[in-house]
């Protein structure tokens, strides 16, 4: 099994400190930050899904992702997957750094990054899902 996927199937998801995320749906802004988060470098996408390749290398990563603006608003109700939410489609930028083995990575300033797609919102799923 891929070591980045929990035995439960939880996919590449990790706990962050409570203050790692701040959201303001009024103006469409949000920030997610982490410092020296422990992760693994699997080397390639296939290995990160299925394992079986080179053993993953311990790594740490720090990042700040900022969402901003309001391009569109959408209300979504999916009875198929059992989720409902109100979303703001906007843009995002990120600055990050990482250390893996002998390598240090430092991204260019956040202003030089761009998002293909970005959204923030408020949603309920599973046992919290109601169609209202």
């Amino acid at each position, binding site marked *: 099994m891929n070591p980045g996927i929990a035995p439960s199937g939880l996919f590449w998801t990790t*706990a*962050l400190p409570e203050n790692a995320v701040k959201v303001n749906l009024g103006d469409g802004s949000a920030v997610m930050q982490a410092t020296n988060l422990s992760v693994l470098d699997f080397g*390639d996408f296939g290995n990160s899904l*299925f394992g079986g390749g080179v053993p993953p290398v311990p790594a740490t990563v720090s990042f700040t*992702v900022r969402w901003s603006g309001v391009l569109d608003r959408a209300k979504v109700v999916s009875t198929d997957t059992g989720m409902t939410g109100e979303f703001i489609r906007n843009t995002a930028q990120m600055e990050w750094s990482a250390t893996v083995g002998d390598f240090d990575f430092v991204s260019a300033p956040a202003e*030089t990054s761009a998002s293909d*797609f970005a959204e923030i919102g408020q949603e309920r799923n599973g046992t*919290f899902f109601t169609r209202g």
Partner: protein
Amino acid sequence: MNATQLRAASERASRVNSPYAQANHGPKGLSRREFVRTTAGVVAAGAVAATGLWRPSLAYGAAFASSDPVPIPGGTPGLGGAFHIYAPAAIDSIDAEPITITDFNGFVGLTYLSGTVTRRNRVTREVVELPFLGADMRFMHGIYRGADGRIRQGTFGFV
């Protein structure tokens, strides 16, 4: 997670016309090795080392324990539903589920980001500038029902 790689893998997978298994270990009708080679080939063609770095470690398993969030049921058809994730506006509908945990009520965010990163080898001092493409970053911040059935406050990142 890398949306570019996921999309490429999905497109490549659809071309080999093989439905994936529901199991966590890979595609039905396509061996695990073949699928890895398929996705790895796509990755080798266009992926960037920098964006392959961020994969949460199972070392976090101990911290999760019985308070673990529960993964969403199902997953993107692009990967045969074998992985509990969707990629809205990348390989799935723009309105697809953006988070990875179920029994959740709170704030969420998702984005696919591209830019450049400088890689420095501390031993050889070699410095290389690389692009990162479609880095998939998500958050979940609210209340959730853990694997033990208890409701908790939590903040999670998909990185």
